């Protein structure tokens, strides 16, 4: 198994443009390679649905690509405090990340030359690539001081970055050790298998140590583009950089494009449908189902793609508030779901069944195959009666206005809950208003973006005291299971833990999960070699237009 895995990993790395020399250096960290492979699970079930435009030939240089990301272009100051995908795209054009997770959810070293873990997953060695330079006023190559600078920022609770929540469960500032000008060692206080993925979180762009906090004033990074302008709520423009460290198929530095413009279409599907159709932009990411269907039925010349993702909708409750503090009530709320009906009406064939346990089937490689829970109205009613609500009860449920499908799914679910006597009063909210207080709502319908490993989401959302533990869930047994899962090296071991964790959450957890959805995107035929991913990022480094 190990040798076979390593072979595939080699091929992948070759395709992503690493040179021979760094490959040899790579092979010296075999444990690292296997560890990396083991974490991500190379024995990958081939159930991915990712329509790609097969590259039509040799890349063409030049041109401007315009695209729309339905996630708004929120104001941008510090890359580490970015909280919108749209704005994070801008950072990603200009600044690189230490790792890169591809469309198959496998991580690769990117700015790093290698990323190795000790067998117990508590010591990680990061070796920087030689070559990437910052486009600071006096350009200079990246070194380990920069990396340490970024890590320290991410761990600083005063900065208000989402990286803190990801890293602090296993890393403290004291664990960062500079080995030499290209090597940093992380001595973790707890084992983890999520580090390569965490480094790819959209708030984890690498800035030079001279960075003072305002990206629009100091748009510095090692990335393939340079910032021209960023107008919040409207658009941003980046132009190609001259001396990027990666090269294209023709031996010249990437990117192929001259310029990329991203436009904020304010999540209005008629706007981006019209834009795609009339050639005002070339790509639309994160499109809603209504747009997807309109394009599919009316405009066959637009190339559509749907990528399976772990993005999920929850109906979740505070476990410390009546009546949701009673497990039986929560279970009843899960049992009344008719997932097929919710999926069909909200997203049709662009969703797959939720599992009430956050682990997305065939997305997380360690997923333990369990059938999705079935609707059981009888049992739900009797559980409610047992818990003291023989006639059901009334509750509010807040939900955000975007993504579009949440409104539909919530209405359908409310109708289903009526059948067991639970009267849900729906409270739609503008997205901003909802997310401003998203942890305060007692019963609500949040959407969680795609993360390749379920342990990442579980850690953020359900670990006792975690930053994003919106349901106030505090269960020692669950914490222990989660620790077990994050501390495993091999996929098989993790699957073993999941075989216990998944049923546990389905029974005791704080949410009902009707579905996972596909990430939908559309592009015109002009666009070549762009692979939309479950992350919905706009990454056009390797893309060209006809």
């Amino acid at each position, binding site marked *: 198994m190990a040798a076979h895995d390593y072979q595939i990993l080699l091929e992948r790395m070759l395709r992503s443009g690493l040179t021979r020399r760094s490959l040899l250096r790579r092979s010296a960290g075999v444990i690292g390679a296997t560890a990396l492979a083991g974490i991500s699970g190379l024995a990958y079930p081939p159930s991915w649905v990712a329509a790609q435009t097969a590259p039509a030939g040799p890349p063409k240089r030049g041109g401007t690509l315009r695209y729309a990301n339905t996630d708004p272009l929120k104001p941008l100051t510090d890359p580490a405090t970015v909280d919108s995908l749209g704005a994070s795209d801008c950072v990603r054009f200009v600044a690189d990340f230490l790792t890169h997770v591809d469309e198959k959810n496998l991580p690769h070293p990117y700015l790093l030359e290698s990323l190795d873990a000790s067998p117990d997953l508590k010591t990680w060695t990061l070796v920087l690539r030689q070559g990437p330079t910052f486009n600071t006023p006096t350009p200079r190559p990246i070194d380990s001081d920069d990396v340490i600078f970024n890590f320290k920022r991410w761990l600083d609770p005063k900065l208000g970055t989402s990286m803190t929540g990801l890293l602090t469960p296993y890393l403290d500032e004291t664990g960062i050790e500079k080995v030499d000008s290209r090597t940093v060692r992380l001595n973790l206080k707890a084992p983890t298998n999520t580090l390569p993925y965490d480094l790819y979180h959209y708030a984890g762009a690498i800035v030079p140590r001279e960075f003072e906090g305002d990206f629009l004033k100091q748009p510095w990074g090692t990335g393939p583009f340079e910032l021209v302008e960023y107008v919040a709520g409207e658009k941003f423009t980046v132009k190609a950089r001259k001396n990027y460290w990666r090269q294209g198929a023709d031996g010249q530095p990437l990117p192929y494009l001259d310029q990329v413009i991203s436009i904020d279409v304010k999540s209005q*599907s*008629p706007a981006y*449908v019209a834009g795609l159709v009339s050639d005002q932009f070339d790509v639309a990411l994160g499109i*809603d189902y*209504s*747009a997807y*269907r*309109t394009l599919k*039925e*009316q405009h066959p010349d637009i190339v559509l793609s749907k990528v399976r993702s772990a993005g999920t909708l929850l109906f979740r409750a505070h476990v410390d508030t009546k009546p949701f503090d009673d497990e039986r009530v929560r279970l009843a709320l899960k049992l009344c779901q008719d997932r097929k*009906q919710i999926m*069909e*009406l909200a997203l*049709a064939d662009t969703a797959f069944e939720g599992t009430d346990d956050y682990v997305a089937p065939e997305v997380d490689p360690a997923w333990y195959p369990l059938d999705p829970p079935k609707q059981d109205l009888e049992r739900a009613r009797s559980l409610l009666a047992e818990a003291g609500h023989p006639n059901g009860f009334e509750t509010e449920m807040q939900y955000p206005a975007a993504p*579009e499908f949440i*409104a*539909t799914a*919530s*209405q*359908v679910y*409310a*109708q289903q809950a009526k059948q067991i006597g639970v009267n849900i009063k*729906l*409270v*739609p909210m503008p997205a901003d208003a909802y997310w401003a207080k998203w942890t305060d709502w007692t019963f609500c319908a949040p959407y969680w973006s795609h993360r390749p490993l379920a342990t990442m989401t579980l850690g953020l959302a359900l670990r006792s005291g975690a930053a994003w533990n919106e349901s106030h869930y505090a269960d020692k047994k669950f914490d222990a299971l989660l620790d077990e899962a994050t501390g495993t090296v091999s996929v098989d071991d993790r699957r073993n833990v999941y075989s216990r964790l998944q049923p546990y959450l389905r029974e005791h957890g704080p949410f009902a999960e009707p579905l996972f959805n596909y990430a939908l995107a559309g592009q015109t035929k002009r666009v070549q070699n762009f692979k939309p991913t479950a992350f919905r990022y706009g990454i056009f480094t390797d893309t060209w237009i006809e």
Partner: protein
Amino acid sequence: MSAEFMVGQDENLAHSGGVKFTQSFIRALSRPSAAVGLAIVSFWILVAILAPLIAPYGPNDLVGRALQSPSAAFLLGTDDLGRDVLSRVVWGARVVLVLAPMAVLIAEIAGALIGLFTGYIGGWVDDVIMRINDALISFPAILLYLLIIAALGPSKTNVVIAIALASIPGIARIVRGVVLDLRTRSFILAARLRGERLWYMLLVELLPNARGPVIVDATLRIAYAAFAIGTLGFLGLGTPPPDPDWGGMVNQGVKWLSVSAWMTAVPAIALASLVIGLNLLADSLQSRIKQ
């Protein structure tokens, strides 16, 4: 005449007395456009009353596949949740036909009370109240709605409150006009000499004389209120889901126009027809009164 032309017209209306008004009302209905208006409005009132009998399904029942064209089971097709469009339009009639008169009733009562009071009291109190009043009138109604509903949140109650609040200044002005005209008449002076109290003066002596213009205004305002309810629903500021609200249904359907237009076009046309009918009625009433 000054640029307060429109308002001045309303004040002139104040001169119509009670009996003359009723006669004009009946005559007004005999015009053909009025008849059409009456027919339309009566139709929708009937639909609203008979909703439980006419609608094939409940307003929120998920009964079919989404976005279907009309069929035997679903005469006007289904919406994006697989609900019957016909049923939702029928049940939705109740929303408009209850909320619009309610808002106007509240506005007329409150506006009349304010107008009676300030017109009768006169003096600096009247000046201050009228300044505030005129500022409110000159404010675009839509902004008032936006501010009020942004503050209070979308719900049927808040829609009524918003529309009522926006209507009160105009009504107050009309009623005040009546009072100003009548203040110096002999029967008022006589009542005052008798020592009648304020509320008696306002409600017993003055209010009946304002009845005419208030009723005419009310008919026009109900048309406007229906218009506003539809618009607020369309902007997402009306009845929250899942209950049917014509404006809201149009709003939800716009993104599906390419796939199926029924869930959008039917409530749109329903609302338009109701408002047109109400306007036809109010229009013939107004022109009759003016003559």
